[in-house]
């Protein structure tokens, strides 16, 4: 393993707004909407890997909904006693974490073969996550166009220099919640931010507002039921799991890109594949194969292990565990507190084609101007 370090003196800090200086630079240099590196895979093989199937997602979705209903039933039954705690613990993760991977895969349209099934699960999962289904569909499209390109990517979880307190708060769920709810309220009031307007076509703005209003209406109804029944229980079932159950989403999701390069056009430099236990992989729907997902976003979650086996000769070695990945990333984050251009550059196997650096070097030198 090796690390790259760059002189930082007199460099301006990164501008993460989507309408600022970094945006302008990314567009001018050709870093935005660039053609990315991808491992060569025979067309016939890729076509097989991209094939859709309803069966795996129907099985997983029925299990997911069944576990949600079962844990909710247990939590309601034992409400008022300590016995409800383990049921809420399970319910929370299914609601606040597993929904993220369902939102993600259905947003790509790759979970199910049948289109409407993707759309239904996408809408439900978006609500659970307090994510505007219109806004986030477009933000995620941008994330795939310009992955970790500063000034372009709307979904950079840990910016540089890293705000470690914010990252730690994310595990409590509160860190994200305090942004998600106000954003939803703002959108419901008819206002989209300049950043949002930068990646959502104008023809979709009104749809985003309407979607936010539906979400807010359901939350208002939930609060009304809680007040009427004088019980906290409705909120524990709808809304609050977004806080107390999101830790697993953060645990797995943060590893996707932290500590790795930004402003590159090679997903091997900015994304991370981590081997995980089967439970986490089920909750996360195999997004631990993250380099593979970014290189080939149309490969369904259930085919990612096969894709990984096929192209791992061209990728950095995966982290063998989440613990290993965090242990690897932590010192990099600490170093970025002082030198924000510092990043982890992992070694490629001898069988791999070299990294594409050209845009990275250009972007960094441009940032020094």
């Amino acid at each position, binding site marked *: 393993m090796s690390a790259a370090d760059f002189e930082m003196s007199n460099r301006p800090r990164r501008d993460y707004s989507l309408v600022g200086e970094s945006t302008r630079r990314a567009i001018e240099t050709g870093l935005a909407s660039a053609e990315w590196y991808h491992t060569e895979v025979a067309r016939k093989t890729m*076509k097989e890997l991209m094939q859709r199937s309803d069966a795996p997602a129907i099985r997983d979705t029925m299990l997911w909904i069944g576990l949600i209903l079962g844990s909710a039933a247990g939590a309601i039954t034992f409400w008022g006693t300590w016995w409800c705690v383990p049921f809420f613990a399970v319910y929370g993760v299914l609601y606040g974490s597993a929904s993220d991977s369902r939102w993600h895969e259905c947003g790509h*349209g790759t979970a199910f073969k049948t289109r409407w099934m993707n759309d239904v699960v996408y809408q439900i999962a978006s609500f659970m996550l307090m994510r505007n289904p219109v806004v986030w*569909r*477009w933000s995620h*499209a941008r994330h*795939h166009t310009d992955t970790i390109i500063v000034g372009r990517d709307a979904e950079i979880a840990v910016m540089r220099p890293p705000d470690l307190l914010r990252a730690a708060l994310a595990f409590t769920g509160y860190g994200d919640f305090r942004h998600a709810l106000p954003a939803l309220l703002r959108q419901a009031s008819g206002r989209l931010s300049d950043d949002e307007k930068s990646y959502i076509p104008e023809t*979709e703005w009104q749809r985003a507002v309407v979607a936010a209003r539906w979400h807010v209406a359901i939350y208002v109804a939930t609060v009304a039921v809680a007040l009427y029944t004088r019980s906290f229980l409705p909120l524990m079932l709808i809304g609050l799991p977004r806080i107390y159950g999101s830790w697993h989403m953060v645990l797995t999701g943060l590893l996707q890109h932290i500590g790795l390069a930004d402003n590159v056009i090679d997903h091997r430099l900015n994304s991370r594949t981590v081997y995980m236990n089967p439970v986490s992989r089920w909750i996360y729907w195999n997004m631990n194969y993250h380099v593979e997902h970014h290189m080939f*976003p149309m490969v369904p979650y259930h085919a990612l292990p096969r894709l990984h086996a096929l192209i791992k000769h061209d990728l950095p070695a995966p982290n063998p565990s989440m613990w290993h990945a965090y242990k690897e990333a932590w010192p990099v984050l600490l170093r970025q507190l002082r030198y924000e251009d510092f990043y982890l550059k992992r070694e490629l196997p001898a069988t791999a084609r070299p990294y594409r650096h050209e845009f990275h070097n250009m972007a960094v030198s441009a940032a020094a101007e």
Partner: protein
Amino acid sequence: MAEWIEACAAGDIDEEDVMRFDHAGRTFAVYRSPDDEYFATDGLCTHERVHLADGLVMDDIIECPKHNGRFNYKTGAAKGAPVCVNLKTYPVKVTAGKVLIEIE
């Protein structure tokens, strides 16, 4: 002035698949439908500059490999977010086992 340009041999494309064809600085996507008919469109997605030939053909739909943008490759119609602009289509004919595209 429009002219017929040979894109590939008919057998070069599997049924329900797509192939990239570059000509005179332009890029096209040539499709073979499940019914063994041939079609052609512009090669790049109208949402971002991504080659559709790397995407997935399902019935009469081509799905962009990057963002799941979907087009009817027979008509060029965009089928919803994130694609909003239709694809340009081109006349195609098969002559003596060759797929020809009429390009202006």
